[in-house]
C-alpha cells in the first residue's frame, strides 16, 4: 500500500505537544454551557446565608434568632452553640491553626461568620439574616501588625499565650510564629564587612484574588445510604474529601466531592471556608441538599486575602556591584486566624526563594507571623507560595542597590545572575534550582526592547521635563524573576499531612480513543486541552480523541489539586509517565501482532514499527483494538494505566520583563506604553495557551501593582469591599503585551515542562512597580509602597516637589 502521508503529517494529525491546539473547553464556556457551582440545582434544595459581623473585634453578648425563625420558610438558624456538640464550631486551618466556623463568643474581623440561616428560598434566607439580632460589645481593634506585637489586647483568647504554635515558640500573645532560614550571624558579618550596603523597607499590601466566580458549595447528605455528596469551588477536591471525613466522622468512601467548572481560582479556592462546613452540617441536620454561595462583597471581605507583608531588606555588595549578602525580615499580617495555604513545613511559603535569580553567597530570612483584626487567608494569588512577595522583595532591593551604587540596574542584574554552568544551583536559603540560562534571556530582552535607546529617550525626557517642555515622566521597569513551582517532593511538601504528589489514570477504549483522569482541577488553565496534547504525543492517539476529566473524587485518582503552577510539573509528569506505561504494554501487543520480539519494534509518532522495516507497523489505534479482542499470551486484556508522580525537585521557570510607562505628574495617571515579557517555562506544550496565561497573569499583576488592594480603616472596616473600589482591570486599562520566550527544559521533568500560569504575575508586579519607581528615580525617589494608584503616584510627585 502506497503511503502518501508523511511523518510530519502524522505528527500534525495527533495535535500533540507544541501545537497551538484550540481550547476544547471554550465551545462550552463561550455558549453559556458551563456547569458552575451555582448551576447545581437539586430537588428540594435549601439555601444558606450568613449573618456576618459588622465589627472587627467585639464580644458577642447574645444572639436572638426568634424573629428570623418566625419567617415562613426558614428552616434553621445555626450558631456556634448549635455546632459545638458536633465539635464543628471550630475547624483546623491548613496552617496548623484553628478557625471559628461560627463566632464563638467573639468576632475577630469584619465580615466574620456569626450565624448561618437555612431557608427554603434564597430570598427568604436573606430576609432572615436581616432579622437575626446580635448584641455586640465592641473591643479595641488592631489592624497594624507592629502594634499587635506590642499591644496588651489579646486577640486570640482561645490560645494559651505561653504555648507553642504549630511552628514553634510564640513571643507574644498576638505572635503566631517565627520562621528563620539561613545563617543570620554570617549574614550580619557580611553586611558589616561590605563596601556597600543598601537598606529598604517595603510594604506589599493586602489584596485579593477575586475570581469571577465566588466561593460556594452544595452539600447533599443521603440519609438512606449514608453518602455525602459535596459540590464546591475547590482547587483541591481530594484534600477537601479527606478533611470533610476527618471533621465529620463520615468514612471517606462515603464522601464524594465534585468540583464542577470553576470560574477562576488564583488561590482563593484552596482553603476550607465556614460556608462549606455549614452547608454540610445543614444538610446532615435537615437531610436535604443545602446550597451556599457567597456574594462578591462576602468574597472580598472574608475569603482568602493575599500578601500583606512588611519586608525589611539589606543587601550588600562590592563597590563594583558584586552582591555579597542579603538579609530579609518579614512581618507577616495573617489576620485573625492563621489560615495560610502553604505546604505544612513552610509557614511563609517559599519566601526563602528571595535571593532570586542572583548568585548571592550568604543570606538570611526571618518571618514573624502576626494576628490582627483582619480576615484570615494568606493564599498564593496567582503564584507559588509567597513567591510574588519574594520576587518583589529582591527585584526592589536590586533597584535600590543600583541607586546606592549609581549603576544601571540592568547591568547590575547581568553582573550577578547565576550562570548557566552553575545549574543545578544550590541557593543559600535551601533550594536547588534545576536549570536556567538567565544571561541569554536577559540579553534577548534588552536587545528586543532597545534598552539603550529607551534610556537615551528617558534622559531626553528628564531634560525636557526640567525645561518645562513636558509634564510626563518616563519609567523603564525591569524585572528578572525565578519562580519555584510544582510543589512538591513528598519528602518536604505536604498539605495537612498529604504528600504533594499528583496522579493520572488513563483508559484506552477499544476504538482508539481514551479518557484520562487527573488529581488536579482546571479553573481556566485549559487542562482538557493541554493534558490531551501531552498524552497524544506520548501514546500516539490524537488529542481530539482523548477526554480529560478532573474534579470528581469518585472517579479521579487522588491528587493534591491545582495551585502554585503545580499541574503541569506534577500531574503533567504523572500523565506523561502513565502514557509511557500504556506505550510499554502497547509495544508488547504490537510485537505479538507483528510476530517479532518486543525489542524489535519501536514507537514512531502514532505506531509501532519493526526496526529497520518501517513498512511493517501497527498503529496505536489497531493496537488498542487488539488489546480488547485478542487473546495475547502473557498479556492481560485491556489497555489502561495509572501513575502517581512524586517530583524529585521543584521546577524553576524564569523570565525577563520590561515595562515602559509614561506618568502624568499632575494627575498621577500612568500609561503603559509597552510591556515585553520573555518567559522560559521549559518545554512548551501549547504556545497559544501559554500566551493566554501570560496575558492573564500580567493583567492581574497590573491590577495589584497599580491599584488593587483590600484596605482597612483604623476600626477594621473594609474600605474596598465592592468592585467600585477594588480594582479589577478591564480590556480598557490593559496594554498590548508583547510575549517572547526561550526554552530551557527542566532536566528532571519527564517532558521538561516547568509551569507558566503564575510566572507573569510573579514577574509582572515588580516590573510595573519598578517602572513607576524608575520614572521618579532621577528626582530622588527610592521607595514608594504599592499600590501605585493615581493619588499615591501624585503624592510621590508632590513629595518630590514636582508640583511646585
Amino acid at each position, binding site marked *: 500500500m502506497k503511503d502518501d502521508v508523511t511523518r510530519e503529517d502524522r505528527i500534525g494529525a495527533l495535535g500533540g505537544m507544541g501545537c497551538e491546539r484550540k481550547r476544547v473547553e471554550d465551545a462550552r464556556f463561550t455558549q453559556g454551557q458551563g456547569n458552575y457551582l451555582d448551576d447545581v440545582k437539586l430537588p428540594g434544595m435549601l439555601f444558606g446565608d450568613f449573618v456576618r459581623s459588622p465589627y472587627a473585634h467585639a464580644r458577642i453578648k447574645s444572639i436572638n434568632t426568634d424573629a428570623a425563625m418566625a419567617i415562613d420558610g426558614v428552616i434553621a438558624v445555626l450558631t456556634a452553640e448549635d455546632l459545638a456538640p458536633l465539635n464543628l464550631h471550630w475547624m483546623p486551618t491548613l496552617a496548623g491553626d484553628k478557625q471559628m466556623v461560627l463566632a464563638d463568643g467573639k468576632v475577630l474581623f469584619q465580615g466574620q461568620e456569626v450565624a448561618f440561616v437555612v431557608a427554603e428560598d434564597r430570598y427568604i434566607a436573606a*430576609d432572615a439574616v436581616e432579622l437575626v439580632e446580635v448584641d455586640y460589645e465592641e473591643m479595641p481593634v488592631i489592624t497594624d501588625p507592629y502594634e499587635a506585637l506590642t499591644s496588651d489586647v489579646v486577640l486570640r483568647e482561645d490560645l494559651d499565650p505561653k504555648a507553642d504554635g504549630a511552628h514553634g515558640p510564640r513571643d507574644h500573645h498576638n505572635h503566631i510564629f517565627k520562621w528563620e532560614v539561613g545563617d543570620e550571624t554570617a549574614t550580619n558579618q557580611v553586611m558589616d564587612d561590605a563596601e556597600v550596603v543598601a537598606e529598604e523597607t517595603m510594604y506589599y499590601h493586602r489584596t485579593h484574588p477575586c475570581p469571577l466566580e465566588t466561593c460556594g458549595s452544595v452539600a447533599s447528605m443521603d440519609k438512606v445510604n449514608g453518602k455525602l455528596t459535596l459540590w464546591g469551588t475547590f482547587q483541591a477536591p481530594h484534600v477537601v474529601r479527606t478533611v470533610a471525613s476527618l471533621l465529620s466522622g463520615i468514612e471517606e468512601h462515603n464522601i464524594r466531592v465534585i468540583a464542577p467548572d470553576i470560574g477562576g481560582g488564583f488561590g482563593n479556592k484552596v482553603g476550607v471556608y465556614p460556608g462549606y462546613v455549614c452547608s454540610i452540617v445543614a444538610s446532615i441536620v435537615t437531610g436535604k441538599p443545602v446550597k451556599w454561595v457567597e456574594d462578591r462583597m462576602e468574597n472580598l471581605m472574608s475569603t482568602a486575602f493575599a500578601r500583606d507583608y512588611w519586608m525589611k531588606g539589606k543587601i550588600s555588595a562590592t563597590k563594583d556591584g558584586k552582591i555579597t549578602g542579603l538579609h530579609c525580615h518579614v512581618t507577616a499580617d495573617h489576620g485573625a486566624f492563621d489560615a495560610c495555604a502553604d505546604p505544612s513545613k513552610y509557614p511563609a511559603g517559599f519566601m526563602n526563594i528571595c535571593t532570586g535569580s542572583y548568585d548571592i553567597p550568604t543570606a538570611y530570612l526571618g518571618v514573624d507571623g502576626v494576628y490582627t483584626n483582619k480576615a484570615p487567608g494568606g493564599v498564593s494569588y496567582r503564584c507559588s507560595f509567597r513567591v510574588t512577595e519574594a520576587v518583589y522583595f529582591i527585584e526592589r532591593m536590586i533597584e535600590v542597590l543600583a541607586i546606592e551604587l549609581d549603576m544601571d540596574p540592568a547591568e547590575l542584574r547581568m553582573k550577578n545572575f547565576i550562570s548557566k554552568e552553575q545549574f543545578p544551583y544550590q541557593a543559600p536559603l535551601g533550594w536547588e534550582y534545576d536549570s536556567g540560562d538567565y544571561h541569554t534571556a536577559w540579553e534577548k530582552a534588552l536587545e528586543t526592547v532597545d534598552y539603550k535607546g529607551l534610556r537615551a529617550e528617558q534622559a531626553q525626557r528628564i531634560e525636557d521635563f526640567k525645561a518645562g517642555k513636558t509634564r510626563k515622566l518616563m519609567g523603564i521597569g525591569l524585572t528578572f524573576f525565578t519562580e519555584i513551582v510544582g510543589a512538591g517532593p513528598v519528602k518536604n511538601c505536604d498539605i495537612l499531612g498529604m504528600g504533594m504528589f499528583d496522579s493520572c489514570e488513563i483508559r484506552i477504549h477499544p476504538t482508539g480513543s481514551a479518557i484520562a483522569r487527573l488529581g488536579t482541577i482546571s479553573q481556566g488553565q485549559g487542562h482538557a486541552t493541554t493534558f490531551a496534547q501531552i498524552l497524544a504525543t506520548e501514546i500516539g492517539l490524537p488529542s481530539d480523541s482523548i477526554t480529560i476529566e478532573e474534579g470528581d473524587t469518585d472517579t479521579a485518582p487522588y491528587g493534591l489539586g491545582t495551585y502554585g503552577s503545580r499541574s503541569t510539573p506534577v500531574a503533567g509528569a504523572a500523565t506523561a509517565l502513565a502514557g509511557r506505561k500504556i506505550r510499554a504494554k502497547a509495544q508488547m501487543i504490537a510485537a505479538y501482532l507483528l510476530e517479532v520480539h518486543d525489542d524489535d519494534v519501536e514507537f514512531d509518532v502514532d505506531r509501532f514499527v519493526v526496526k529497520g522495516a518501517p513498512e511493517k507497523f501497527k498503529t496505536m489505534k489497531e493496537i488498542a483494538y487488539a488489546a480488547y479482542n485478542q487473546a495475547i499470551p502473557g498479556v492481560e486484556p485491556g489497555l489502561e494505566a495509572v501513575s502517581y508522580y512524586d517530583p524529585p525537585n521543584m521546577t524553576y521557570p524564569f523570565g525577563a520583563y520590561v515595562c515602559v510607562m509614561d506618568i502624568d505628574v499632575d494627575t498621577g495617571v500612568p500609561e503603559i506604553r509597552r510591556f515585553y515579557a520573555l518567559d522560559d517555562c521549559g518545554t512548551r506544550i501549547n504556545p497559544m495557551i501559554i500566551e493566554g496565561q501570560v496575558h492573564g497573569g500580567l493583567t492581574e499583576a497590573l491590577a495589584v501593582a497599580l491599584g488593587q488592594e483590600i484596605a482597612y480603616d483604623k476600626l477594621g472596616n473594609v474600605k474596598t469591599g465592592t468592585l467600585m*473600589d477594588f480594582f479589577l482591570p478591564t480590556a480598557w486599562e490593559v496594554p498590548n503585551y508583547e510575549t517572547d520566550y526561550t526554552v530551557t527544559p527542566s532536566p528532571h521533568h519527564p517532558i521538561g515542562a516547568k509551569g507558566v500560569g503564575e510566572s507573569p504575575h510573579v514577574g509582572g508586579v515588580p516590573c510595573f512597580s519598578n517602572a513607576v519607581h524608575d520614572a521618579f528615580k532621577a528626582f530622588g525617589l527610592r521607595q514608594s509602597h504599592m499600590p501605585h*494608584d493615581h493619588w499615591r503616584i501624585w503624592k510621590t510627585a508632590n513629595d518630590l516637589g514636582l508640583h511646585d
Partner: protein
Amino acid sequence: MIPAAFEYYRPKDMEGVLAILEEHGDDARVMAGGHSLIPMMKLRMAEVPHLIDLQDVEGLSGITVADTIRIGAMTTQNALINDAALEAAAPILKEAALQIADPQVRYMGTLGGNVANGDPGNDMPGLMQCLDATFHLVGPEGERDVSARDFYEAAYMTDREDEEVLTAVSFPAPQGGFAYEKQKRKIGDYATAAAAVQIVKDGGTCTGAQIAMTNLSDTPIYSEEASEALVGTSVDDAAIKAAIDAMLGDIDPTEDNRGPIAFKKHVAGVILRRAIERAWSRA
C-alpha cells in the same frame, strides 16, 4: 446582595405612574435604567416596597433637536451617543456619555435616571448645569420646570417631590467650543474629578463661558465665578488660573478611596485647565 421583597409595577402611561406614587408616597420609587437604584436595593441601602418601572410608559424617550434641545428622560446613554443630530448640535453630550460606565451599562442607563437620582458621582447633572438645562417634572399638581442649577440640594436630595417624575430635560443648543474632561480610576468608575465646559469665542475674546464640576461636592457644582473669570479674556494662562481659583472656592471634595482632599483639589484644577484649553481650541 439580595433585595428585600417589593411589588413591581409596569404602568403604560403617566397617569398610572402618578396614581401609584400618590397611593404609596415615599414607599414607591420610579425606576428608569435601574443602574443606581437596583444595586442600592440589593445592598438593602434603599428600601423600595413599590417599584415602578417606567420602560412601558409612552413618550418618555426621544431626542428633539432645534434651537432648544429636548431629551426624554428614558433616553439611554447609548442613544445619546448615536444620535447624529444631537452630536452636531451638542457634541458635549456624546463626549460625556462615552465616559460613563461601559457599553453594557449605557444600553440600559438613561439620562433621566442619571440626573434625577441625585448621586454626586453621576456625570450628567454637572453637564446639565453647564448647559443651563431645565428639568421637566410632572406630579399630581401638574407639570413644572426646575433649572438644573437649582435642582440639587445634597447627595440624593433634589428639588423633586416624592410624587413627581422627571419626564424630560431641555436646554438651549450650546454655542462655541466644548469639552467634558474626566479623570477616573478605571472604566465604569465615577469621576475623581470631571469638568464640563462650554466657551463662546468672538475674535480672540471669550464672550461666554459655562463651567460645571462633577463629584467634587455632595452635589454637582456650577461655578458661576469660574465661568465669569474667562469672559472678556483671551483665555490666557492668567484667566485660566483665575477660573481654577474660583472653581476651587466653590467645590468641597471629601476624602475617599480615590484620594485625599488635597489630591482631589489639585486634580480638579488640572482637569478644569485641560477642559478649558480643549474647549477654547474648539471654540
